[in-house]
């Protein structure tokens, strides 16, 4: 793997300063600060993401791993986030972790930060600047997993409705691609309709209710998370039998799944989504880079998949209105990075712990 300027500079710096080989926990980052630049704080997923960042960073500060942290939120505006990143650059933070407002609009300031020998890690909503480390979800894979599960459950034959996310985003585009690719192997599966639910239950409900009268019998619904509950409500209101709906780790979706499964006749499905706790992975990735560890330029994070045997445990852990997520530890992040470097399977997701 070709290593970028940042890593070279970062590694050279820490080696020069510490003069010790980079082994886990050996190179001290005790005097360093890691800042988070977040593009938007206005929804449940992001709130939980910030909470997870707070937990990870506070724990690290308490243990003396890093010295300080700071969180700045932009109002979903790329220019505003760009100037905030500029400010962080001037304030001498050793690493800046970014959930980006735009895949491209921050590249200029990110490059500036890299030139100032600052470690930049982007996660969740990525920026494409080549000098930044990326903590990424494979959303195409999410679509593939859904398609394969549905095809298997339906025996390779049946009508499927697709509920998509916000039009024009890369996440929506990738999940959709995975679904189409996945179903391509099963000629008996027909995608009979598609609506944009925008990852929001109320919008999904409205959109699905709008398209239902035009559809034949729907056997399954593939979703993107945050839209499963609304989809169910729309089917119920139309007096249609409940199809197989893929869930998206939201508390209301898991509670619905539990209710349907406990009813006579039962209900089988599975649930998957990105986890807001990915901010804690990004935090530890930044810390590991500062510590001089060998870190892949792109760290692929497995999606959080909940099967029925884990349903009760996750349902207990997620607060009402929240999204299921583990808090990823430094050790888990190290195992994930090792797996990424060795191209082996990622470690299994940490078990749910109840949220504080």
């Amino acid at each position, binding site marked *: 793997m070709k290593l970028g300027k940042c890593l070279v500079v970062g590694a050279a710096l820490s080696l020069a300063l510490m003069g010790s080989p980079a082994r886990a926990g050996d190179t001290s980052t005790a005097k360093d600060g890691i800042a988070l630049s977040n593009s938007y*704080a206005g929804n449940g997923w992001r709130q939980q993401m910030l909470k997870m960042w707070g937990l990870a960073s506070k724990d690290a500060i308490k243990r003396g791993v890093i010295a300080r942290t*700071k969180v*700045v*939120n*932009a*109002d*979903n*505006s*790329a*220019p*505003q986030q*760009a*100037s*905030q990143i*500029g*400010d*962080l*650059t*001037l*304030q*001498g933070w050793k690493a800046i972790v970014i959930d980006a407002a*735009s*895949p*491209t*609009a921050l*590249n*200029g*300031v990110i490059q*500036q930060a890299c030139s*100032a020998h600052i470690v930049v890690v982007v996660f969740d909503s990525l920026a494409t600047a080549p000098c930044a480390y990326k903590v990424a979800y494979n959303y195409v894979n999410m679509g593939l997993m859904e398609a394969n599960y549905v095809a298997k459950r339906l025996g390779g034959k049946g009508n499927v409705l697709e509920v998509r996310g916000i*039009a*024009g*985003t*890369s996440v929506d*585009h990738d999940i959709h691609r995975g679904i189409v690719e996945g179903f391509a192997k099963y000629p008996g599966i027909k995608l009979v309709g598609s609506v944009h639910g925008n990852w929001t239950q109320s919008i999904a409900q409205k959109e699905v209710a709008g398209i239902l009268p035009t559809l034949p019998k729907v056997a399954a619904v593939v979703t993107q998370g945050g839209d499963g509950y609304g989809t169910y409500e729309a089917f119920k209101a139309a007096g249609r039998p409940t199809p197989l709906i893929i869930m998206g780790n939201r508390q209301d979706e898991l509670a619905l799944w539990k209710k349907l499964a406990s009813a006579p006749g039962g209900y089988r499905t599975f649930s998957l989504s990105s986890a807001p706790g990915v901010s804690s992975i990004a935090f530890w990735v930044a810390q590991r880079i500062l510590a001089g560890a060998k870190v892949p330029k792109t760290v692929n994070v497995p999606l959080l998949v909940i099967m029925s045997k884990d349903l009760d445990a996750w349902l207990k852990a997620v607060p009402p209105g929240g999204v299921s997520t583990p808090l990823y530890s430094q050790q888990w992040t190290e195992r994930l990075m090792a797996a990424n470097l060795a191209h082996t399977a990622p470690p299994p997701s940490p078990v749910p712990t109840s949220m504080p």
Partner: protein
Amino acid sequence: MPADVTAEMAAGIAAGAGERGARRAAALRVGLPAAALVVMLSVIFAMQPRAMSYFGLSVLLNFTLPAIFAAMAQMAVIAVGDIDLGIGPFLSLVNCIAATLLATRPLFGWLALAALVAAYAGMGALIHVRRLPSIVVTLGASFVWLGLALLVLPSPGGAPPGWLPALFAWQPPFVPLPVLASILLAALGQFLLMHTSYGVVLRGIGGHPRAIARAGWSLLAGRMALYALAGASGVIAGLALTGLNTAGDATVGAQYTLTSIAAVIVGGGEFVGGIVTPLGTVIGAWIMLLAGSLLSFLNISTDWQLSVQGGILIVVLGLRALNRWSAA
């Protein structure tokens, strides 16, 4: 309207005490924000000395160019007593065109940008001829700009022609580009609007339309000229934004509507028309731009940023009212 303002409008007619009062009012109008800017910069430099370097200033003032040109566009409209609620989405539209058409079909792209300037002039004519409230027309136009931007570029991406980012990454010797451009723009604007005879006429359209009409000038042409100036400044602001972002995004300019209005008012402009200064507007744009950085350097949560920007506006207007009251 107080006597000193009248004098400032029709230069040469008033004399004696009125003119001295006008000079004082004009000096205060720019002096107050200038002093505020000096204080802000001093605090920032004291908190973070490395901001004082060439690199530091470049980072700190990264998004100055779109901000000052957007403020200048807003100033041209406020000068005539109108207000432009569509400049933010207009910047987004220019951004989207610059990241697509301008790169793939340059001639077509330039034509589109020219058409946008013409559309602004047309908007001015429409407002004048039909006596429509500018707030309604520009708000309506803002949705047109947003719709067009989404048509041109449905999802973020695209790439501008190579010369555009290079132009805005240019590092002139000694003085960083944002500082240099601000000084040049303020000087040019100040000269055109305050020291040429047609500049006096243009400001007069906002302050004393009847006097200007009686003197034989076309109010329609004047308003169209100012709106065209606003459109041209908006195009430059959008190009600057594209140069810095190196990509297109149909929602990227939204915040510039409010910050540009705030910049004009903080910089000494008034909504009544005719009372604006290009120098003050540039200073106002800097103040709005640095407000967020100042909070960040003082370690105050960014959640306060919008409130503080609003607070600055209220304090400035309050101080100005006090000053007027003591002068009367």
